[in-house]
């Protein structure tokens, strides 16, 4: 429950309050106005300008979607209606959304940790620290201060994952539908959510289980990582005196002992492996999935209906009559001739990618430069890349729906048509949770973090050179967005590789490419690296033997 920094242990309420104060003070300082024109934060799809424009057009008696400036769905307009024009309060809905998302993340982490503290559950960050990290994530703050609609989408994503982990069908369906409603791409989360309902969320605290069980291959393999993250000055949770003493007593602090224990306890490892196989063979609970789907349909219908209700003064912008007419193959309603419905203006706009305003994604420059004849083909290809790995990931990692969700969030952040900085927030926040075991074996963390920092500096610099100073051309900014795409690819590939390895370790199989967990921990902390490697090697052999039996 408590997030501790140094000797200071404070509750989540503190972080929420501080984060809200930080957002309010930034908004007060006028940070929001320049962010309206930043391509990294504001895109045509999530812009506060679009929300304000839609509300203004409503005020003028026009449909918000009569023009090409408003792409926010009707209920987002309704949500912002009271505050959007206010110079300070415009950030209020987003701030609330961020706070709720952090709360959902905290609940999710608590749920997955089964109430244990971060260290006891073997995670890099405890629930409260995760929530605090989410609230203080700079990209999330930028998205909130910029007034974008992305924080709403992030809230929906967090709620959906919380609902999935808790197997709470109404909540998960609401989150999924709301995220889809705001930003379309969270629709992909339906795949991992279905797994969560069918099979249950993965156990990110396997380390903890194994250790409490006494010993095991995974426990000893990850012991090195635990000690290195604690001893190398890693997590914020490392400061608590009580935790430190517990860890000192734990196996991780003495890898040699751990290795010995592990080597001696092959039977326990075999048991763990058998348990994993058993879980894999668990029956898929279709009924829960169906319940989830029913709720999703109900919530979706409700959102559509509420949207049309909000637009009741503008029948030409309503979608349900058109959908009904389309479904029954009847003639479209008379109002349809006067313009497109709001779905066309919001999600249709995102799919058509008619606006070539630069952003941090890969679409804009390709479609700007592309020959007209190939435009439909390439638009299709680009869109397909965001969804192409939903099924393969789910098939490859059927027991890790949270990781699948994380990977899909990352893929969407990279390959949605109008990505923004706010899209980085959910997968960054979920990484310590969904990749709790993988991150311990990550060896290129320094490179990845520095690459992101460098891109975050270079992107605005190139933008300024091109757009503000007019001393460069779009290729400069394009190169940075391209590198960001490469960065996403590297992160995703690393994560998948690490997960493959963790899966095999969890199954008790050997990792044969010489990149044992000990090697991974050796990259992270130098003090116990070789010993850890030796321990891991011993464990691997032991585990292999146990499986072979």
């Amino acid at each position: 429950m408590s997030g501790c920094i140094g000797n200071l242990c404070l509750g989540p309420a503190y972080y929420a309050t501080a984060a809200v104060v930080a957002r309010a003070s930034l908004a007060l300082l006028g940070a929001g106005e320049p962010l309206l024109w930043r391509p990294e934060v504001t895109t045509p799809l999530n812009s506060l300008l679009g929300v304000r424009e839609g509300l203004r057009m409503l005020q003028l008696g026009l449909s918000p979607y009569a023009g090409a400036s408003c792409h926010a769905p009707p209920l987002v307009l309704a949500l912002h209606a009271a505050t959007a024009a206010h110079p300070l309060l415009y950030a209020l809905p987003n701030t609330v959304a961020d706070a709720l998302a952090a709360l959902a993340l905290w609940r999710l982490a608590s749920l997955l940790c089964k109430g244990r503290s971060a260290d006891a559950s073997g995670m890099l960050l405890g629930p409260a620290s995760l929530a605090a990290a989410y609230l203080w994530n700079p990209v999330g703050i930028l998205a909130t201060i910029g007034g974008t609609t992305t924080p709403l989408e992030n809230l929906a994503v967090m709620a959906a994952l919380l609902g999935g982990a808790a197997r709470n069908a109404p909540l998960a369906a609401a989150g999924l539908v709301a995220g889809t409603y705001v930003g379309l791409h969270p629709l992909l989360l339906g795949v991992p959510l279905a797994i969560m309902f069918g099979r249950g969320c993965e156990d990110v605290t396997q380390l903890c289980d194994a250790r409490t069980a006494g010993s095991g291959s995974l426990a000893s393999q990850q012991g090195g990582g635990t000690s290195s993250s604690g001893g190398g000055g890693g997590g914020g949770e490392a400061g608590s005196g009580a935790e430190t003493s517990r860890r000192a007593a734990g196996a991780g602090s003495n890898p040699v002992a751990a290795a010995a224990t592990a080597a001696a306890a092959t039977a326990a490892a075999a048991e763990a492996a058998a348990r994993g196989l058993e879980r894999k063979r668990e029956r898929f609970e279709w009924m829960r999935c169906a319940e989830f789907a029913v709720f999703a349909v109900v919530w979706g219908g409700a959102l559509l209906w509420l949207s049309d209700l909000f637009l009741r003064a503008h029948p030409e912008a309503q979608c349900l009559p058109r959908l009904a007419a389309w479904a029954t193959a009847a003639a479209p309603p008379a109002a349809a001739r006067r313009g497109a419905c709001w779905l066309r203006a919001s999600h249709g706009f995102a799919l058509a990618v008619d606006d070539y305003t630069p952003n941090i994604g890969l679409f804009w420059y390709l479609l700007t430069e592309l020959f007209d004849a190939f435009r439909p083909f390439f638009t299709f290809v680009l869109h397909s890349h965001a969804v192409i790995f939903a099924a393969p990931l789910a098939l490859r990692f059927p027991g890790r729906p949270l990781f699948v969700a994380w990977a899909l969030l990352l893929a969407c952040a990279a390959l949605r048509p109008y990505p923004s900085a706010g899209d980085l927030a959910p997968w960054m926040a979920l990484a310590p949770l969904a990749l709790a075991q993988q991150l311990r074996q990550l060896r290129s963390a320094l490179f990845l973090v520095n690459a992101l920092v460098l891109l975050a500096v270079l992107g605005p610099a190139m933008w300024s050179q091109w757009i503000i100073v007019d001393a460069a051309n779009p290729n400069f900014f394009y190169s940075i967005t391209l590198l960001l795409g490469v960065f996403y690819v590297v992160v995703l590939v690393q994560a998948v590789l690490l997960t493959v390895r963790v899966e095999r370790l969890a199954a008790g199989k050997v990792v044969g490419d010489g990149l044992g967990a000990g090697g991974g921990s050796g990259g992270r902390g130098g003090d116990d690296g070789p010993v850890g490697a030796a321990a891991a090697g011993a464990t691997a052999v032991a585990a292999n033997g146990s499986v072979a039996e």
Partner: protein
Amino acid sequence: MALAASGGVQAQEEFAEEVVISPLPSGHIQVQLQFTLSSPSRRHYSVLPKAIAQLAAGVPFEEVELSLTQGRWHHHAWGSPLLPSKPSGAELRAAFSPSIPEGQLPLLWGNLSHSLSGMFCASLNFLARPETTAQQAIEFGKPSETGGRASNSEVGADARACAAGPAAGAMGPRPARLRRLYAALPKEVVCTENLTPALKLLPCRDQAGVASLLLHRPSVYGADYHSMRVGILAARDADGALLSTRLSLGITLVLRPPQVQTPGAPPARRAAPRPCSYSSWRLGHLLGSKLRGACPIATQSWLFVQLPPQLAAQAAVGEDGAGQLLHPPAWQAGGAEVHRTGSGSSSDKSSDSSSSGEQAEDNIQQQQQAIAGAEALVEEARRQQPRPEGQGDGPAALDVGQAWRRFGAKGAVVAARPELAVSRYTTGAGFMHGGMVLRLATAAGAGPAAAPSGAGTGSSQAGGGGAADLSTAAAAAAGNRTVCVFQIVPWYVRVWLHTLTLTVDGAPADLDAALRLRHVSPAADRARPLVLDLCIELPAGAREAVLAVQFSKAFLHVFEWPPDAHRGFDVPAALVTYAPLGADGAAAALEWGWRRGGDVGGARGAPSPLLRALSAARPEALYSEGLLVPLAPPDFSMPYNVVCLTSTVLAVYVGAVLNALLKRPGAELREAAKGGAGRRAARLKAAKVVVVVVVFGGLALYVDEELQAQVMQALAAAGLVEAPPAPQH
């Protein structure tokens, strides 16, 4: 042609050619030429060009006005123009009957603009695009007037604030009764290639009559302001059948006179005209060509010279209030009568008509006049001795001039300056966003606080809903002024309507409260422009009103860029319309003077069409500056590179992730352990290569016919198949 002109059959077909020359206070000379050709609908036309008649018969428009303009009218220095000035570039407006369905308008508009494009050799086909065309839903007029047909509710549907303001006789904004389409092409370059086809529509072209003044094209297109407007008015019956057609071709020039060698005037320097003084001028010097008689076909030929207002006032005093704004040398061809303006005045010094032996000379009566009480000047209409132009028996050349005895008529002031000054500019830097500001300032001394005496007769119905009262007269009674701003913004300048603010005298004002009538049609990408039609009521005594709005700049596709990519993109001029408050001021004087002039034409029962047009009550219409908005161009040389680079990243994404997903970390170990498995894997790999080669080879064979032929030849050479028949060349 002469035969046709003299025939009585043509009584209903009319051709009037007129020119008004008026010195401007800045020293420039305004020359307004007007040609009016009208005819009832018939099978054969003798005066009206058949192309125009066919256009009117083919496209069911009510009115069309095309203007091709170069330069900008400087209201502050030149005062109000005789006819409303036009924005630089091409502008086309057309009015269609509301009985024409909305869906047909794009087609009709396209037909119209393409026809006119061909007729006047202008790139008006760009105007036919829907992304440049706007529908004007608010027009200025008398609210009491009822249109011939039912008001179009769909167009005016947005004009919600509109209520009937039945102040009879007052002019104000109201929902348009016709479907008015408007498009402007600010970057259209106007040149002699546009004038020549226009002059071809005239019976005498530029060989005789008023149009012969335009013979010297360098001086015509060297003008500071050049505007050619073509108006076509089609009168139709209830079924839309054409009753009559009227074509009016007007050409406005503002010329910088070469200094005329006038006795009594100091030697001129080759400089710009001195401000605050009227220049002496003579047509021959001014335009490089003289009047070559009248067009024989014309039913009316007029030349008017306008006196400066203060002189007109003096003349009015001196002439017992008879008022004489226009001084002929009015001359008319084809009639026996000699028209003299102010014929009743005693100040005519001479009104001789000296005729020489030339035949055209008989038709030209010319009158020289000086004004009593105006010692300072001599207004002179000098007729040069007729000289044959060139070798042939050309018509006699008439040269008219005006020379000031005391140079410059000091104290020349811009009397008829519009009450509002309009200026517009962009703010901000960079390619991402910017701002657009439209500034309306009341001219000094013509503040709206000056209570109008003439227009205050409207029955004000200011009670009730508050916003219900729209009539300018009622507003004027309260000292307020209703100003309408009509603005088209192309879609690539993405105006944010919620940032539209109104500032009056430096203090923010509530725009919604000030709006009297509005029509907003938001822009759609690549489909239609933003159309803003706002009628704002400015409070009494307001000296300055500023409308400011912010916009984002769009990023265009590579192939949407014009060849001159770094020039910037045009935003058409804003049109500011208002009813002049001082109805008894300059505008009234003008009207009065023209009415007096109208008497000139009235002597024959057929008033001059130009004078009629000038004396018609009309709102003041001012155009702002056009704007040039630079957008961020992409790298035009990059298509292949970008496709390659982005596709590479995507391919790596798919390949690497798929590889990672399929990876089995223990596979290598196991393969190393079992040697046989390695050979099996190698065989599998070879099989994969074979499959790929076969699939893609087959595909290539299927697609590429040359390859097919080559393969068939190779096979034939190997003796596997029969040799294909050799292609015959």
